[in-house]
């Protein structure tokens, strides 16, 4: 208690010291930047997950090739979760003389738990749930193909069902489009018809929905035991690939920015703590000389630091909540349509992390302070002997590593950041030492002011190196945030230019192509791209029928059973890259197929393997000529299997078209759709919008964090300059006494700071370029991303000038130091 009182008294007395205020401000900034971002990120993520849950029809679930055992549902119900079961399978429906292969989903009455099932009947649309027993919902294509209307009877799986409504849209896991026309039937009907029995090709799903904590608990339970054969978890994060990429990148961006500003604050804390320790040295020496035990000195220092840190951290938490709520009201709510509550936990986590940063960065100098020998009271130089290698100084490094590890959420991001920052620190320190060594060599022949400035830097070699390193680290973080992050975002945005195809057309027949193209062009459609589409099955590999082959990958069997989409083209599509083999071109001598990497892995394919496909009545055997890496996040039509046109174009096929049509043409398209009733038009604007909104949202959040980072950067600068202020003042007084002119001191300081700024700016620009290049490729998957060198260099030079100007402004007081000061000091 007494110690605490003493600590509080000490704090009150020392509150006017700039280094203590810097410590408090840095901690506050670290907590606020981590807290705001973590709170916002958590809220955005919750919102995104909620919207993704709408896409899959539940918050989480399981999918398996057989019905999921009852405990999965029982466990969910015990946690107050809603449960629904469904099964998807292909089946042929008949109406009179007509038959049509359908993608059927058999669902119970609770489905969907999330999202909307949109139905149309008798000219009105409504939201609904799974069809009642004895009824079925068919989509427009199925109705047209079977020549049916609402109220008509249709036979599915041997059962006579009534078409209760037209299926307009359904939660479909974010699929761009289904291959076959779709139908929704009652799960019990499907079971009765034997469609889901042993040997069926149904994919069973069990979806649950409820409170996030209960979902997490249920998922933990599910993961705690082996999944049934062939079962996979269904989570919103695992929805459509396009969305998943967006989630990943958004998360990486947000964490990166928060992390960098926290590290910036850490550097400021370290510098301020060093300075505080130096200032406290005589006082501690006196306390020690008067008989205070080392442990008590350390406890007092810790208590003082605690008395400073805890209120600052608490204030940080409150500010994080307020700012995150403000930011959400300004921007967030427009993006995520699902209402979400302000998450309170992340800010507390940020406070804990801020305190860890403070402890890690401030503890070493303070711990050393407790070891000041009592004899230092007689000779200050006794206290200045700092051990060159001090294991305690590993602590901030370890804290930084732990922070990077815990915040980045990805080993790759953590590794790149850690290596880059360490590299920058090392480079800055080395460059500083080399330049200082060089400075000593050239100083004798240089201009007197430059010589003085160089001498000043060289004199404080240790401090100058610390300053240069801290400034470089601060600058590299700022450059990453201010220059590289927006460039990365721009790269991401460019992946989805304004004219990205937003409509897809399925089922276009050969004889409809010319007329349809002409009408689209009259409507103003752009970027029209048509690809042939054949539907077939994989029959054999290297002459062996697939049903006799065994594959290690369980997905292979499913894909072998499925109907496949095959296409052909003479030129490699834009979002594809050949990784093995050679692209066949338009006229290879023998039939060739190009497979994507997933297929290569699933079926253990290699160049030269032969694959046989059954398409309609015909077959085609093709040699694997190349393996492609496909960017599935691009909004282009992509295929796992691409054949060469010379050999494939005779296969029975329809056409698949994609095009961009500015919004506001829905009516004209509706007319087009009525005139070509066999076509399916798919609008992907909603999906595109969602991804674009994520990009915009991340951009907004990055700007927010950038604001904090600039403040943190300013603090680093102030703290770095302040580290040498005392020495500078003493030196200035001495030099004035020895007759140095004020201009001479100012010019010397300008040279000194310009050099310091140059070291910091150049290493930071190099570091940010390298880290950006690496991050772009390894984390954000932007393969052609090059950080913009000119803005980086310009920003680095501008930063150098700012460092010089601020340094000069900071030295104004120093150059005005009265030389009498020395005489008064004795």
């Amino acid at each position, binding site marked *: 208690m007494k110690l605490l009182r003493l600590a509080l008294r000490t704090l009150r007395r020392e509150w006017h010291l700039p280094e203590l205020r810097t410590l408090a401000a840095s901690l506050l900034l670290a907590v606020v930047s981590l807290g705001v971002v973590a709170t916002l990120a958590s809220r955005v993520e919750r919102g995104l997950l909620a919207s993704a849950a709408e896409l899959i029809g539940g918050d989480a679930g399981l999918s398996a090739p057989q019905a999921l055992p009852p405990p999965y549902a029982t466990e969910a119900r015990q946690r107050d979760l809603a449960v629904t079961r469904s099964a998807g399978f292909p089946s042929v429906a008949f109406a009179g003389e007509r038959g049509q292969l359908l993608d059927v989903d058999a669902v119970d009455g609770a489905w969907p738990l999330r999202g909307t099932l949109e139905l149309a009947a008798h000219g009105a649309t409504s939201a609904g749930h799974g069809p009642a027993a004895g009824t079925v919902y068919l989509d427009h294509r199925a109705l047209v193909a079977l020549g049916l209307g609402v109220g008509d009877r249709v036979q599915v799986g041997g059962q006579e069902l009534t078409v209760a409504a037209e299926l307009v849209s359904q939660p479909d896991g974010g699929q761009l489009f289904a291959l076959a026309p779709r139908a929704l039937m009652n799960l019990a009907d499907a079971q009765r018809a034997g469609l889901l029995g042993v040997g069926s090709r149904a994919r069973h799903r069990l979806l649950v929905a409820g409170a996030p904590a209960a979902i997490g608990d249920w998922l933990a339970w599910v993961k705690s035991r082996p999944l049934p054969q062939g079962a996979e978890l269904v989570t919103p994060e695992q929805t459509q690939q396009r969305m998943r990429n967006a989630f990943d990148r958004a998360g990486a961006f947000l964490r990166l920015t928060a992390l960098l500003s926290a590290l910036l604050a850490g550097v400021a804390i370290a510098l301020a703590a060093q300075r505080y320790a130096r200032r406290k040295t005589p006082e501690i020496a006196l306390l020690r000389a008067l008989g205070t035990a080392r442990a008590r000195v350390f406890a007092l220092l810790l208590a003082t630091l605690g008395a400073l840190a805890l209120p600052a951290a608490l204030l940080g938490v409150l500010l994080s909540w307020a700012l995150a709520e403000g930011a959400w009201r300004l921007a967030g709510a427009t993006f995520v349509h699902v209402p979400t509550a302000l998450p309170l936990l992340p800010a507390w986590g940020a406070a804990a992390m801020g305190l860890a940063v403070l402890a890690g960065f401030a503890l070493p100098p303070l711990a050393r302070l407790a070891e000041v020998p009592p004899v230092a009271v007689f000779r200050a*130089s006794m206290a*200045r*002997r700092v051990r060159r290698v001090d294991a305690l100084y590993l602590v901030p490094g370890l804290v930084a590593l732990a922070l990077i590890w815990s915040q980045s959420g990805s080993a790759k991001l953590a590794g790149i950041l850690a290596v880059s920052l360490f590299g920058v620190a090392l480079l800055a320190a080395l460059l500083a030492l080399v330049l200082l060594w060089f400075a000593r060599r050239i100083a*004798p*022949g240089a201009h*007197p002011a430059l*010589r*003085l400035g160089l*001498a000043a830097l060289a*004199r*404080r*070699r*240790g401090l100058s190196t610390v300053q240069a390193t801290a400034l470089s680290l601060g600058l590299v973080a700022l450059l990453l945030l201010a220059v590289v992050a927006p460039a990365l975002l721009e790269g991401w945005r460019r992946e989805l230019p304004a004219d990205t195809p937003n409509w897809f057309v399925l089922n276009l027949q050969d004889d409809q192509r010319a007329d349809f193209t002409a009408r689209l062009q009259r409507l103003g459609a752009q970027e029209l791209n048509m690809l042939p589409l054949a539907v077939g099955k994989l029959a054999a590999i290297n002459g062996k029928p697939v049903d006799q082959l065994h594959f290690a990958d369980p997905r292979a069997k499913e894909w072998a059973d499925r109907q496949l989409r095959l296409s052909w083209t003479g030129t490699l599509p834009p979002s594809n890259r050949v990784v093995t083999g050679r692209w066949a071109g338009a006229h290879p001598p023998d039939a060739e197929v190009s497979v994507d990497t997933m297929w290569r892995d699933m079926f253990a394919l290699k160049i030269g393997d032969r694959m046989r496909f059954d398409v309609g009545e015909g077959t085609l055997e093709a040699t694997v000529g190349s393996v492609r890496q496909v960017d599935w996040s691009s909004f282009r039509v992509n295929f796992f299997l691409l054949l060469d046109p010379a050999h494939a174009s005779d296969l029975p096929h329809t056409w698949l078209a994609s095009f961009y049509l500015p919004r506001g043409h829905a009516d004209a398209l509706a007319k087009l759709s009525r005139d070509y009733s066999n076509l399916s038009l798919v609008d992907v604007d909603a999906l595109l919008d969602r991804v674009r909104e994520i990009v915009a949202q991340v951009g907004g959040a990055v700007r927010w964090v950038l604001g904090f980072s600039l403040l943190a950067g300013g603090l680093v600068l102030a703290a770095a300059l302040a580290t040498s202020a005392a*020495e500078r003042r*003493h*030196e200035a007084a*001495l*030099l*004035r*006494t*020895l*007759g*140095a*002119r*004020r*201009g*001479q001191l100012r010019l010397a300081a300008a040279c000194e700071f310009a050099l310091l700024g140059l070291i910091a700016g150049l290493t930071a620009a190099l570091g940010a370029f390298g880290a950006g290049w690496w991050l772009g490729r390894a984390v954000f998957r932007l393969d052609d991303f090059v950080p913009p060198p000119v803005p980086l260099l310009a920003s680095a030079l501008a930063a150098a000038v700012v460092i010089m100007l601020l340094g000069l402004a900071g030295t104004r007081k120093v150059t005005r130091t*009265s*030389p*009498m000061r*020395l*005489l*008064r*000091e*004795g």
Partner: protein
Amino acid sequence: MSEPSQPLLEARDVSKTVRGPEGRLDILAGVSLAVHAGESFAIVGASGSGKTTLLGLLAGLDVPSTGAIHLGGQPLQAMDEEARADLRRRLVGFVFQSFHLLPALTAEENVMLPLELEGRDDARQRAHDALDAVGLHARRRHYPAQLSGGEQQRVAIARAFVHGPRVLFADEPTGNLDQRTGRHVADLLFALNRDHHTTLVLVTHDAQLAARCGRGVELMEGRVATPAAAR
């Protein structure tokens, strides 16, 4: 001792007043003195008598509130700080009680400092010579923390003499040293004063040291109690 007609350093009716928390405070009042080239001159007095303030005024570190000070024939009170700095660089050397060596500089670099300010190319050689003169050539690469108090003060003396000043101001130069070391340092100061014909102005409350000076004044509460006279 015959005095040259023009003193090198002259103070006429100098006073210094500052504003403190309790209002106006007269630190010096009506101080007059004259020091000629090559002389050694002591300013003595009790703590708080205004010795250091007077030294600062005489060296041009500060300006008097009233009165006039001439150094090398130049009126200090009429010059701005820049001009006084220029004058100091050319004419003045300092030795302080606490040595005031820069801790990050070696002995040699500390001594080079005034020469570097002048932009002289032979700074290193002259610093060597100066350290030689104070018997510390072998320790020129040592940092202040590696030197004893006496050695530090000898480095400070070398720094004060290295650029050949006409006046050397010393503020309690032996105040931080033991008697024996203090005597050695004082010997050195007076030897350099004699050999280089440098004027020495010394602030001290050590009567023995003061007694070694040619002349001096004693201050008491900011006034001259004992006028300057040949000793």
